């Protein structure tokens, strides 16, 4: 059955009577009896106990935790419903953030409407459904059993079935042949319809509603954005720390060494101080380079275009930059675009054997588009680094040939470590894409697209 409402589909099928469905329906209806009894008993006891204890705190706490029973009822009933809904019913509960404490988790679940709906279903089950099921499935099942057993029972005892009185096995057999098939057909459909109807009820009350699915999706997207944002914040914090701490101290050191050079007479001591000064300056330059890779200052202060121009200026090959961005964009988007350009230009310089490169950026509708084009040898792939390193992170113009990869970039990672593959993940979280066209022989073109806003 490919139809989602499996029970109804089975009922409509011609082979319903010879399938397992009538028996599944019996199992579903009859198993509701113990579950229903237990549910109503536990709920009643909890309510009574919490009312009795309400003068003290425990009672209030118990009362407040009653919606949590809904969660339990939902779990049991969704599991039981698999008897007639083979595909199962998806849980309506949202994922709880893993950082939550036990108490926060409980509060989170208690506030969910799905928990209350399941509790309502539990009440319905405990008060109304299980007696109904016991009655209908009980009458149907018992009558069926008695009819089937009529020849045997009548052999021992007089047996009254409706208007007839069966005295011996022969009469019992006639009764079985005459009424057995008819009753089997009637009872199977009655039980089947009831089970199907109840499974619909379970789906409606215990399953996820569309708005809940949408909300879960929105929450998921938001949490991914939060993650990207958190990384951005963390990068900014590291940059500030390096700037205000280590860099200042190194600059202080160069000043002191500079003064010492003035005072010292010509000789070995002075030579060493000059050397130390040079080393301190080299350390500063290295540090500056590292900071640039973490969180470029010019990006924060002057935006994407200025930062891209700066990275283009540092590239060993001529890079033309054409960007027309009217406004500043949200920081995570600017950062993603900047690192795409930076990574791509690095790859072009390393692998593409290109003589020139072009970076363009513009806004198309509500999306930021950035392209990096080079006139290199082409054949680049947007691979994730794998163990053999045969198709490593060659960006645009990467000389990596897809087959074999002999003489390729090997396992030499790019500056960003995970390179463009990591940036794809980052863009993905922002709702953006990265696309590479690189026919053998070139030209190679990397195109990045990303929504200009974070909330959509």
């Amino acid at each position, binding site marked *: 059955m490919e139809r989602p409402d499996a029970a109804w589909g089975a009922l409509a099928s011609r082979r319903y009577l010879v399938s397992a469905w009538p028996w599944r329906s019996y199992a579903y209806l009859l198993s509701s009896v113990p579950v229903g009894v237990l549910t109503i008993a536990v709920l009643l006891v909890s309510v009574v106990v919490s009312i009795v204890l309400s003068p003290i705190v425990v009672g209030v706490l118990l009362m407040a935790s009653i919606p949590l029973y809904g969660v339990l009822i939902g779990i049991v009933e969704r599991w039981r419903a698999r008897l007639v809904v083979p595909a199962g019913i998806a849980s309506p509960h949202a994922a709880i953030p893993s950082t939550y404490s036990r108490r926060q988790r409980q509060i989170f679940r208690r506030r969910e409407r799905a928990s209350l709906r399941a509790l309502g279903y539990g009440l319905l089950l405990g008060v109304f459904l299980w007696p109904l099921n016991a009655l209908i499935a009980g009458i149907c099942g018992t009558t069926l059993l008695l009819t089937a057993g009529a020849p045997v029972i009548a052999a021992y005892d007089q047996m009254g079935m409706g208007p007839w009185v069966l005295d011996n096995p022969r009469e019992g057999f006639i009764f079985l042949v005459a009424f057995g098939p008819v009753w089997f057909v009637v009872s199977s459909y009655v039980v089947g319809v009831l089970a199907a109807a109840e499974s619909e009820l379970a789906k409606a009350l215990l399953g996820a509603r569309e708005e809940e699915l949408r909300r879960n999706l929105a929450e998921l997207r938001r949490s991914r954005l939060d993650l990207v944002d958190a990384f951005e914040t963390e990068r900014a914090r590291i940059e500030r720390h390096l*700037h205000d701490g280590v860099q200042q101290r190194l*600059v202080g050191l160069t000043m002191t060494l*500079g*003064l010492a050079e*003035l005072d010292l007479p010509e000789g070995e001591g002075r030579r060493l101080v000059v050397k130390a000064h040079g080393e301190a300056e080299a350390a500063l330059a290295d540090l500056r380079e590292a900071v640039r890779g973490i969180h470029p200052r010019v990006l*924060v202060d*002057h935006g994407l275009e200025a*930062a891209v121009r700066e990275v283009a*200026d540092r590239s060993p090959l001529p890079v033309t930059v054409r960007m027309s961005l009217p406004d500043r964009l949200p920081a995570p988007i600017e950062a993603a675009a900047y690192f795409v350009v930076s990574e791509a230009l690095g790859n072009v310089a390393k692998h593409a054997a290109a003589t020139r490169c072009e970076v363009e950026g513009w806004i198309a509708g509500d999306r930021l588009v950035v392209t990096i084009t080079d006139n290199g040898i082409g054949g680049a792939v947007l691979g994730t680094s794998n163990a053999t390193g045969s198709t490593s992170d060659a960006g645009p113009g990467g000389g990596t040939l897809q087959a074999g990869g002999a003489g390729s970039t090997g396992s030499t990672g790019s500056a960003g470590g995970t390179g463009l593959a990591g940036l794809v993940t980052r863009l993905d979280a922002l709702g953006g894409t990265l696309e590479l066209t690189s026919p053998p022989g070139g030209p190679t073109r990397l195109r990045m697209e990303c929504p200009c806003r974070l909330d959509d």
Partner: protein
Amino acid sequence: MPARRLSIVLAEDSLLLREGLASILDRAGHEVRDAVGDGDTLLAVVRKQPPDVVITDVRMPPGHSDEGLRAAAAIRADFPGIGILVLSQYVADAYLSSLLETTTGGIGYLLKDRVGHVREFLASLDRVAEGGTVVDPEVVRQLLARRRDDGPLAALTPRELEVLALMAEGRVNASIAEQLVVSEAAVRKHVGNIFAKLHLDDGLDRRVSAVLTYLRG
């Protein structure tokens, strides 16, 4: 000893660097009139009694972004005669344009590391005080890397561009000659050609104008 004893106001939020700078300036015979830690205080101090030169950091409290540059622009607007030397942990030509927007010289933009080369640093300071322009070699390198296909600089030969770049760093002819391993006369010839090709007015300080043309490219 300096050509002239300068009265200097220093703005730098790191105590370590503020004291380091102050001691270097002090030893060189300049007067560090005030040493402050943020842009607003800098403006207040300068307004009360204008110094000869202001030395300021770019990034200062409260925002830790470009408070120093904004204070510099405000000072330049109110007191065009005060030389301004901007020091930064990190230099990029993007910051230069905001510095040069309102200025006609008397401006410097240097990496903080350069302070350690005490003699060169003091020479740069004097140049700024005299109304010259000094730009960090790192920025000049970035500007050189930027390809310009049009504009006034297109007419210059590569050698002339090289000379102009060194002028932008604040070097005098003798120093340029030493750097390029040519005679001072050759440098003078190049400088003359640059002035001619850029159609610089005789009345202005042509050296400054040439450098500004270069930097604004």
